[in-house]
């Protein structure tokens, strides 16, 4: 038997200790993303109810649940597009408040289910990336003021595409010229362009054919580990979560029912609902 959490890629399996940056708090934080007792309410109804979880840099947490479980709302709270009714969301120990700075917004990136809807059809891939890189002044300022010169931006855009496995000639093409899987890879490259610390992928392979699903998952997992991102992978598909995640969280009706290491979760689910989910998945005979 192979251990379900074994990784085929060459990235380090265990994350290094938290970088001791100046923003690190003195608390018992491990770095990465922490969701502490987070609640979200719509019209007085709590759709996310006191959820706590943590994702360390370089690891992937899979969040599963059925429709109405609150998993997508939690994702939106983490990226800052809905406000918390209670609790907090922390990045490397510091609070991401209601109003986020542009640096804080860049630090938490979202990849959505529908790669068709998430890319501007009027811009080439190169233009999309260039616009982001023009704004991006987080690292390696090569000019006074921190802006990158044009040639450096072009090189960086080509590097980003190479990271997700697309050829550099893709820069001059429009989204409609790509398949669904390729568009999702472009969306990932776009998310990585601003050097995030957290990647939230909401059903990233749900609208893709199975033959490209694996590629997109491998890119998310490989880059997430390699770049030491705290990755939240939301999926209704337990086999997707099984393929790449280190830990699994199960939500139902806004409540976190279970949070466990993937190896344990898939062999010995702790909550009866987790077990029901796992047992309901149709399996291929003989596998």
């Amino acid at each position, binding site marked *: 038997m192979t251990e*379900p959490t074994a990784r085929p890629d060459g990235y380090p399996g265990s994350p290094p200790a938290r970088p001791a940056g100046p923003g690190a708090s003195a608390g018992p934080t491990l770095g990465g993303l922490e969701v502490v007792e987070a609640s979200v309410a719509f019209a007085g109804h709590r759709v996310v109810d006191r959820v706590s979880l943590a994702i360390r840099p370089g690891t992937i947490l899979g969040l599963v649940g059925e429709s109405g479980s609150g998993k997508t709302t939690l994702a939106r709270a983490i990226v800052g597009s809905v406000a918390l009714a209670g609790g907090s969301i922390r990045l490397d120990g510091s609070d991401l408040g209601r109003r986020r700075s542009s640096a804080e917004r860049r630090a938490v990136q979202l990849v959505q289910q529908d790669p068709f809807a998430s890319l501007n059809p009027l811009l080439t891939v190169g233009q999309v990336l260039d616009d982001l890189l023009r704004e991006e002044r987080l690292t390696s300022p090569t000019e006074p003021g921190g802006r990158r010169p044009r040639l450096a931006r072009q090189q960086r855009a080509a590097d980003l595409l190479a990271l997700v496995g697309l050829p550099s000639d893709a820069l001059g093409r429009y989204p409609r010229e790509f398949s669904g899987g390729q568009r999702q890879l472009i969306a990932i490259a776009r998310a990585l362009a601003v050097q995030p610390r957290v990647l939230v992928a909401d059903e990233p392979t749900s609208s893709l054919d199975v*033959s490209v*699903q694996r590629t997109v998952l491998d890119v998310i997992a490989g880059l997430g580990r390699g770049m030491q991102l705290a990755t939240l992978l939301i999926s209704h598909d337990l086999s997707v979560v099984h393929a790449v995640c280190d830990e699994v969280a199960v939500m139902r009706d806004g409540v976190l029912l279970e949070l466990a290491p993937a190896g344990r979760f898939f062999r010995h689910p702790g909550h009866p609902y987790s077990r*029901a989910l796992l047992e309901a998945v*149709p399996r*291929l005979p003989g596998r």
Partner: protein
Amino acid sequence: MNTLGSLVVDDLRVSADVELVHGVSLTVAPGEAVGIVGESGSGKSLTLRAVMGLLPRGVHRSGGRVQVDGTAAMIFQDPLSFLDPLARIGRQVAEVCAAVGRTSPRAARVRALELLESVRLPDAADLARRYPHQLSGGQRQRVLLALALAQEPDLLLCDEPTTALDVTVQREVLDLLAQLRAERRLSILFVSHDLAVVTQVCERVVVLRGGRVVETGAALDVVTSPASDYTRSLVDAVLPLPVPAGGGDD
């Protein structure tokens, strides 16, 4: 010999500006369940819709033969697009019953309730008074099944009927489909992108790619020892998921 519920599709061609389905042939024997699997663009849904005569605007059958023995009814991935948002569930089912059975409105209402109960909708009488948007996805798919059954079909055409459902609800709908099939001796033609779902429902599988049949065979054979490289690649792309160790102490 009773051939009610059988289907013969012979050299089916479907075209828009260009040909999209290039001569698909398949059969469904009375009482048999056959699956069509393929990726997007394979022509699986077009094939199914051509059988029902429900091709999208601008798309037409450009060749071949479709022969259904008996009545065919169809269920879809998205029941909401098929249900009238402004009519109560009971009325929608009763209208089909009245049209099919040429019965009195009262008899049709009684029959509608029976049908809603037969698709295992709890509190059918209460549910019949509701509107489509007040139902869950799984409830709506059951209503669609009731509408299909109201037509007293011999052949049920299913177009990704559980793809939009949660996995636990999918399980319930698939179980229901199996029960109905046994009770009513339905033949089934079932389209899905999900090989595991298809092998659960169907005895035989037709693999389509780019509008052509790649492989046909017993479902178990096709997934355990595929004859074509393409089918093998589809099977290999299915992500494995172990079955959890026995619950409690069993």
